[in-house]
C-alpha cells in the first residue's frame, strides 16, 4: 500500500482557452460539450452582455459538466451500477449590491443563456428593497487560462468488469478471512468548468476524483452482536491508477482480523487518557475542529441558520492560542491529489500562490475566504476558497485542503506510542459530531489499540473521544515526521442553503494528545459494559 502523499504541487497544463478537453467515453452530452468547447467564448459574451444590459454591475457565467459513476457490491453480488451526467449553466449577478442567480439547461445556447442572465437580474432587482447593506466585491484579476488536473488513467475509460472484479475479489478475500458480510463500492467523479466573469476572465478547468470503500461485518454467532470495520482507503483527486496501486485484498483481510479482535476486546473504562491518533482518523478531526471553525462566512454569521457560526470570531484572529506550538495547519488548493485542488476557484480567483497558514505554530492566523469577505476583517482579497457543487449552485466559501504539517523530525507513530504509559492508538474514522460553534466534539474510530507501558497491548471497544476543540489541540505534544504524512478526505462535506456538497482533503501525521476525555459508548447507551478493561486488568485471563 502506498498511502503517502507529500506536499508536492499539482501540475497545471497550459492549454489555449476553449481547447477541447479530453472526454473519454463521453456519451449523452458529448455533443453539448463539443458545442460548449467551441462556443464558450461567444456564449460567455452573450450571457455577460445580457446581464450588463439588464443592469448587472458584476456578472459571472459558468457552464459545468459533471459525470459520476458508481458500482456497489455486497459479498459476490453487484448490487448497482450507475452513471450520472449533468450539463448546464448559471449566471450570477450583482445588481445595486444585491445578488441574483439563475441556473438551467444550456438548451439552444444564445437564447437560453440570455434568458438566464435576465432572470438572475430580475431576482436581484426583485429583492433589492430588502437589502440594507449592499454587497461589495473586491476586484479580481482577469485570467485567460486552462487548468487540468494530472490524471494517468481516466476512470471513465476503465471497463466496468475491472471495477466489479476488484470489488468482488476484495469481498472474497474478506469472506475467506472470516467476514460474514462485506460490502464495497467505487465512486468516481469528473468536473469540467467553464468560467467567465465581467472582469474579463475566461477559465476552463477539469478534474477527477475516485473513492473506494468497503465495510466488513463479523457476527458473534454464540453471544449475538456484531462488529464492523470500514476501509481506511481515502478518496483522492486521482485517476484509476490509484485503485490499481492499492492493495485492497491485504486491507480487507486485515480489516476482518481487526473486526474479530474488536468484537472480543474489553469495553473501555471511561476517563481521561492519552491518545495517539493516526492520520486515518485525525483528518476528520482536523476537518471538524480546524476546518469549519475557520471559515470566514461562518464567523461572520452567514451560516448561522444552518451549518452554524464559529468560536473563532474575527477579534481572535492573530490572538487566539488555538493549539500547542507544534501545530501548524496550512490551507491550499494546490496539493497533489487533494480533493479541493484546482487552478481557480468558482469566483475566478487563482489558487497557486494563495496557500496560507490557518494556524501558525499554534496561533490562529487566517480564515478561508470567498470574494466579498476579506474587507470585513481588514484584508484585501479572497484566498480562493469558493466552490459551487454544480452548475445550479451559487458559489460559496468552502474548504481548501487543510493539513497538519509534519513535525521537524522523522518520528513514526511507534515512537509517539512509546511515550504513553496508559492510552489508546486510534485508526480509521467512525462517528463524528460537533456543536454549531465548533467547541464540543465527539468522535469514534474504527480500531482502538490499547497502549500500556509504551506498547500496543490488544484492543478496546466502545471508545469515543470527546472534548473542546481548542483544549484538544493545545494538548498535542507529539507529531510524526514527513515520512508519516497521509492524505485523508471526504467527497461530501455539507454546507449552505440550498445544501451543497464539497470534496476536501486533509493531510495529517500521527499525533499525540494528553489526557483526553474517553467515553464508553455502551454505557452512554444506558447499558452497563459487560467487561471493562479495568475488570480486565484485575483478571489476567482477559
Amino acid at each position: 500500500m502506498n498511502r503517502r502523499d507529500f506536499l508536492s504541487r499539482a501540475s497545471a497544463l497550459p492549454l489555449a482557452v476553449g481547447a477541447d478537453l479530453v472526454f473519454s467515453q463521453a456519451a449523452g452530452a458529448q455533443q453539448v460539450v463539443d458545442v460548449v468547447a467551441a462556443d464558450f467564448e461567444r456564449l460567455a459574451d452573450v450571457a455577460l452582455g445580457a446581464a450588463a444590459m439588464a443592469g448587472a454591475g458584476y456578472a459571472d457565467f459558468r457552464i459545468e459538466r459533471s459525470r459520476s459513476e458508481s458500482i456497489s457490491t455486497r459479498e459476490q453480488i453487484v448490487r448497482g451500477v450507475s452513471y450520472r451526467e449533468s450539463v448546464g449553466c448559471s449566471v450570477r449577478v450583482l445588481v445595486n449590491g444585491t445578488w441574483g442567480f439563475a441556473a438551467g439547461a444550456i438548451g439552444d445556447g444564445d437564447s437560453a443563456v440570455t434568458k438566464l442572465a435576465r432572470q438572475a437580474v430580475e431576482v436581484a432587482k426583485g429583492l433589492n428593497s430588502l437589502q440594507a447593506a449592499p454587497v461589495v466585491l473586491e476586484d479580481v484579476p482577469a485570467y485567460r487560462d486552462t487548468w487540468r488536473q494530472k490524471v494517468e488513467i481516466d476512470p471513465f475509460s476503465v471497463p466496468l468488469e475491472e471495477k466489479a472484479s476488484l470489488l468482488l475479489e476484495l469481498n472474497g478475500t474478506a469472506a475467506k478471512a472470516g467476514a460474514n458480510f462485506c460490502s464495497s463500492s467505487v465512486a468516481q467523479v469528473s468536473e469540467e468548468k467553464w468560467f467567465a466573469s465581467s472582469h474579463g476572465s475566461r477559465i476552463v478547468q477539469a478534474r477527477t476524483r475516485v473513492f473506494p470503500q468497503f465495510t466488513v461485518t463479523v457476527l458473534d454467532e454464540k453471544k449475538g452482536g456484531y462488529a464492523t470495520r470500514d476501509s481506511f482507503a481515502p478518496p483522492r483527486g486521482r485517476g484509476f491508477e490509484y485503485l490499481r496501486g492499492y492493495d485492497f485484498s491485504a486491507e480487507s483481510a486485515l480489516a476482518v482480523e481487526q473486526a474479530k479482535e474488536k468484537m472480543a476486546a474489553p469495553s473501555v473504562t471511561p476517563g481521561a487518557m492519552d491518545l495517539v491518533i493516526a492520520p486515518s482518523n485525525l483528518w476528520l478531526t482536523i476537518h471538524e475542529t480546524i476546518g469549519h471553525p475557520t471559515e470566514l462566512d461562518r464567523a461572520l454569521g452567514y451560516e448561522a441558520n444552518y451549518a452554524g457560526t464559529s468560536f473563532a470570531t474575527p477579534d481572535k484572529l492573530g490572538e487566539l492560542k488555538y493549539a500547542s506550538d507544534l501545530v501548524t495547519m496550512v490551507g491550499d488548493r494546490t496539493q497533489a491529489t487533494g480533493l479541493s485542488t484546482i487552478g481557480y476557484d468558482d469566483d475566478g480567483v487563482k489558487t497557486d500562490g494563495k496557500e496560507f497558514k490557518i494556524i501558525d505554530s499554534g496561533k490562529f492566523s487566517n480564515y478561508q475566504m470567498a470574494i466579498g469577505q476579506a474587507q470585513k476583517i481588514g484584508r484585501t482579497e479572497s484566498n480562493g476558497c469558493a466552490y459551487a457543487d454544480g452548475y445550479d449552485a451559487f458559489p460559496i466559501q468552502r474548504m481548501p485542503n487543510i493539513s497538519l504539517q509534519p513535525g521537524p523530525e522523522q518520528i513514526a507513530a511507534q515512537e509517539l506510542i512509546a511515550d504513553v504509559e496508559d492510552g489508546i492508538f486510534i485508526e480509521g474514522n467512525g462517528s463524528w459530531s460537533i456543536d454549531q460553534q465548533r467547541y464540543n466534539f465527539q468522535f469514534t474510530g474504527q480500531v482502538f489499540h490499547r497502549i500500556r507501558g509504551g506498547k500496543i497491548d490488544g484492543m478496546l471497544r466502545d471508545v469515543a473521544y470527546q472534548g473542546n476543540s481548542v483544549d484538544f489541540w493545545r494538548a498535542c505534544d507529539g507529531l510524526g515526521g514527513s515520512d508519516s504524512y497521509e492524505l485523508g478526505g471526504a467527497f461530501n462535506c455539507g454546507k449552505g442553503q440550498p445544501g451543497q456538497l464539497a470534496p476536501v482533503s486533509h493531510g495529517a501525521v500521527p499525533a499525540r494528545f494528553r489526557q483526553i476525555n474517553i467515553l464508553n459508548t455502551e454505557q452512554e447507551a444506558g447499558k452497563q459494559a459487560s467487561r471493562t478493561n479495568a475488570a480486565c486488568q484485575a483478571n489476567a485471563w482477559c
Partner: protein
Amino acid sequence: MVLNQQQGRDLVEQVLALSKADSAEVSMASSQNTNIRFANNDLTTNGSIGGLSLTVSSSFGTRSASVTIDRTDGEALKDAVARSEAMAKLAPENPEYMPPLGPQDYAEPKCWDEATASAGMAELAEKVAPVLEASRKAGVKSAGYLERAAVSRISGNSAGLFLYQPETGVDFSVTSRIEEGRGSGWASRQSTAMADIDLAPVGQRAVEKSLASRNAVAAEPGRFPVILEASAARDIVSSLIYELDRRSVDEGRSFLNGLGGLDAVGTEVFGSRATVRSNPGDPRVPSSVADWSGLPAGEETWIENGKLKQLHCGRYWAKHESIDPQSHPSNLLVDGEGKDLAELMGGVEHGFLVTRLWYIRMVQPQTLLLTGLTRDGTFLIENGEIAGPVKNFRFNESPINVLKNLAASGVPERVLGSEGATPMLVPPMLIDGFNLSSVSDAS
C-alpha cells in the same frame, strides 16, 4: 419547467420505445426552485433554479445498469438508453435482481398546490419582509432561508407501471442571534401550500427565543427529564423508523437482534405512550404515494402504544423469506396527547427544554446510540417553570430509550428538523432520564 403528466408520459414512452433491453425503467424529476437566503438581517444569496433529471435503468436477464442525464432531447435520450444497455451487458449477473413492478394501485397524490407552483420571487419577498423587519426592530441578527419548490416526479417501466406525482413545498427556517452572539433562537415551518404559511409569527418566535436565551449559564449534565420540542423530537423518531429493516434483523445486524430479533415484533419494545404511523394521504403532511422502489406507500402503523407492529422489507428479501414486501414510509405521524407547554413542564421538578438538535450521528448501531447537540434555545425547567437559559448540551441517547421513557406529549406540529426533510407531524415530547452527557459552550 415542471413537466405535466402528459409530457411525463410522452417522455417515458419515448425512452421505452428506444429500449432494446429485456426490461427498462424510467424515472424523472423536473423542478423549479426559488429561494431567498439572508444573514445578519440582510440578503445574501438568492436564486431561481430549474432542474431536470432522467434516469433510465436497463436490464438483460439479471444484469442491470442505470444512467442519469439532465436533458430530454431525442439525441440525449438515445445516448442514455444506449449507454445504460452497454453498461448492463457488462455488469455481472445479480442474483438479487427483481424484475420491474407491474401497474400498481396507487392512491391519488395530494402534494400539489397550484398557487404555490406559480408563486414568484415577489411573493417570497413579501413573506420574508416582516421577519427581517422584526429582527431589525428587536436588535437581533437573523439568518434564514425560504425555499419554494415545485417538482414533478414521474416513473414508468416496460412492465406497464406509470406514476405521476406533482409536489409543491415551502420550507422556512430562521435563526435569530443577539448582537453579542450570546443567545440564539430558532423556529421553522414547512407546508405544501404557500398560503398556509405566515412567516411573521415564526420570525417572532425565533426573536423571542434568542432574547430569552441571553447569558446562558452552564448546568450540570446528567440524565434528566427533557422536553424535546417538535423539531428535536422529529429527528430522534425518524432515525429510529428507518432502522426497522427486516433484512438486517434476519442477518443479525440490527439493533433488534439485541432485543429478541424477529420475536420483538408484536411486543412492547417502547413505552405505552409511543405510537408512530405513516399515511401519505394525510392532508396535514401529504407525501409520496410510493417508496423509492415503486411499492405503494399506504396507511401503516409502525409502533402502537409501545408495541413494534412491523418492519419494512424490500422486494428481494420478501421473496427470499416468502413474505409480502413492505414499503418504507414516505411520511411519519407521531400521536400526541395534546398537552400545552405549561402542562408538559408542570410535573418537571428539574429538567430542560430543548428547541432543536444538531449534528446527530449514529455512534453505536448495535444499540442505536445517537450523539448530537442541543442548539438555538435550551432552557432550565425548575418546579414546572422555565427558570432561565442554559448552555447547550451534547447528548448520547438511543431513540429506543426516548420512546421507552416518553412521559407526556403535546400537539403534533409540522416543522423542519436538522436531519432530512421527510414530512412529519410530531408533538413536543417529555422524556424521562434523557442522557445529556456534557456541556457545550456554543451559544
